[in-house]
């Protein structure tokens, strides 16, 4: 940006949002000629890649809605349809593995539209040299998760790539489900006065994976929360059919998800830091690594925005399921600046919570 052109400048400014919340020192460059890891972060670079490349090419209204799954009208009713790719390293981590993740992640994308998941299909991309025993473990885990969820895998594909062309195993899982009549859930439906609920403690998955990846051992139990959430959602919708928004705070964590919802609904969301559940080992690991649990991935949690009149029933329904035992009201929707997320800090002040610009990197200072 060495130009004084007003339009370019204005764009630079809109991209120049400093993540005071992530507080990672240097602001990353943008306008890259090649794919960077930050493009996969779920933050601002991911959003730019999505809008600049994919949404420019594919123009369906269902895609543009940017839900976790698309909801399309069919003669038989409303169909929810989604696909997701799984590339986690390491393949096995405390509390799960890539197989469990590949089933529960896609089920959750359907569930976040209020759909009852019906069928899954998966493609396995295998790298030459992958131990067959590893693959068997992964497939067995995926199958067990399907059984636990009551959602069958009905189609699939395998491909093998040269050694060095992949990282052992990549899985892409697609899923379909039916959205019951009367359920209207979308990221743009939050209204001032609504209440923001999270279904449990945040950051478990990301920190569990990182602990293995970085070879860092923490005291206490660290385990991924990867789990299918459709039963939890069904219970929630039965108790609170007016749920407005549902999203699972995966990549980019709670902060990114709440930002997406505030942006799509053009509302302000105020969170209360002290109310956000974080398990002690995760909090400790984040302190040590210089990470913010608000940006760490979850694979078995949901964020719900509900009308305040249904908040009590919603909370009770979530807490009655073991997967939602630690559900908590963490904030509310207000008439403040559209798209802004603010946080009442544990110390009693307030600050803005923004999307991460790129990857969350550990800080030195």
């Amino acid at each position, binding site marked *: 940006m060495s130009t004084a052109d007003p339009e370019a400048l204005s764009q630079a400014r809109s991209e*120049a949002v400093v993540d005071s919340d992530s507080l990672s*020192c240097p602001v990353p460059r943008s306008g890259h000629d090649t794919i960077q890891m930050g493009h996969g972060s779920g933050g601002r670079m991911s959003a730019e890649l999505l809008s600049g490349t994919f949404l420019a090419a594919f123009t369906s209204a269902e895609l543009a809605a940017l839900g976790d799954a698309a909801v399309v009208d069919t003669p038989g009713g409303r169909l929810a349809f989604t696909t997701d790719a799984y590339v986690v390293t390491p393949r096995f981590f405390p509390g799960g593995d890539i197989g469990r993740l590949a089933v529960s992640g896609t089920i959750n994308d359907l569930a976040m539209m209020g759909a009852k998941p019906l069928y899954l299909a998966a493609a396995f991309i295998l790298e030459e040299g992958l131990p067959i025993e590893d693959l068997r473990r992964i497939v067995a885990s995926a199958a067990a998760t399907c059984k636990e969820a009551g959602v069958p895998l009905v189609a699939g594909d395998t491909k093998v790539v040269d050694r060095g062309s992949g990282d052992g195993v990549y899985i892409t899982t697609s899923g379909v489900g039916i959205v019951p009549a009367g359920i209207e859930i979308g990221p743009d439906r939050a209204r001032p006065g609504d209440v923001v609920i999270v279904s449990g403690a945040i950051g478990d998955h990301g920190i569990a994976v990182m602990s293995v990846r970085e070879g860092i051992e923490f005291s206490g139990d660290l385990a991924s929360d990867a789990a299918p959430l459709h039963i939890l959602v069904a219970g929630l919708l039965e108790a609170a059919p007016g749920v407005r928004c549902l999203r699972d705070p995966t990549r980019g964590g709670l902060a990114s998800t709440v930002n997406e919802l505030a942006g799509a609904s053009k509302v302000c969301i105020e969170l209360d830091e002290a109310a956000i559940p974080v398990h002690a080992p995760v909090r*400790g690991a984040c302190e040590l690594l210089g990470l913010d649990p608000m940006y760490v991935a979850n694979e078995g949690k949901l964020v719900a925005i509900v009308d305040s009149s249904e908040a009590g029933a919603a909370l009770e329904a979530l807490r009655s399921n073991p997967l939602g035992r630690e559900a908590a009201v963490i904030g509310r929707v207000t008439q403040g600046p559209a798209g802004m997320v603010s946080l009442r800090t544990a110390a009693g002040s*307030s600050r803005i919570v923004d999307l991460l610009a790129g990857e969350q990197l550990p800080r030195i200072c």
Partner: protein
Amino acid sequence: MKYLEEFRDPKAVRELAVRIAAKATRPWVLMEICGGQTHTIVKQGLDRLLPESVEFVHGPGCPVCVTPLEQIDRAIAIARRPEVTFCSFGDMLRVPGSDTDLLEVKSAGGDVRIVYSPLDALALAQKRPDRQVVFFAVGFETTAPANAMAVAQAKRLGVENFSVLVSHVLVPPAILTLLASPTNRVQAFLAAGHVCTVMGYTEYEPIAAKYHVPIVVTGFEPTDILEGVLAAVTQLEEGRAEVENAYARSVTRQGNQPAQSLIREVFQVTDRKWRGLGSIPSSGLSLSEAYRDFDAELRFDVLDVRAEEPAACRAGEVLMGTLRPNACEAFGTLCTPEHPLGAPMVSSEGACAAYYRYGRTAPGGTAP
């Protein structure tokens, strides 16, 4: 978490803020030196809890931000070499050099890795004798002992494929530079608790006396910082200018002597360039004669990589609180967070970057 939660207690924070407000009868300008303290202030919103009469000027104590362009360019030149595995603390990877950053070197095929300790880099060198493992040794006095330890161990163990690119800086010379400026506005300093944990605080005593400024050794949690502010404001109101230790649970006057002797053995004091402040005499560390073999600058012959900080950048004035960021000619035109000219725009905690953000979120979308 024990030993952390009690220093974040909202009630204690509010009580301290009230005591500071009661104490401050006049406007005072305080500088917190360390980026970690700036982090807590912004993340916890402490500045918004204080009376308007107490103004924070954010100091140059973020090592990531003050590392000069030249040193980033040297890191990039080394990291691009095919035989090199380049190890760094995470947030150094996206500091812009003249035309790229280390993350882009990684995406272009360079072997660039994040480590949490220089000893991890040393272990990697032992495991991979076929690779040249280089650690980017940046930071203030806080990180110097661990970096010195890695180099000393490499020498003791004869790990010849390990080296360090040193860009260490020291706090007292930076404070002296700020104070010596005729336009200085800072009336008291919160010294960096971690730096003083290593170095003690005797170095600050002549500075406090010479310039008649209170210097309060301060920790990093919300109540730590407000204790530091309260002590500084109290001294200012009473006309005192002493070095005071508000972080006694970690800091002693003499500091950590074994760590200091290790630093003295492995490093020597040298002149260093600071991003935004320019060259400051005797403001940094380089490897001492006995450890020259581990100097990556010599091993990879990058001393001729030179880069000048852009002349248009007036970061020094911003850092001293004499220039408002949006009053700088380069602000928002030549200098943006994507293409920062100086430290305050590089760091998301920096004053220039904060003005940029404020311009977006303030009603009407204009910077104040």
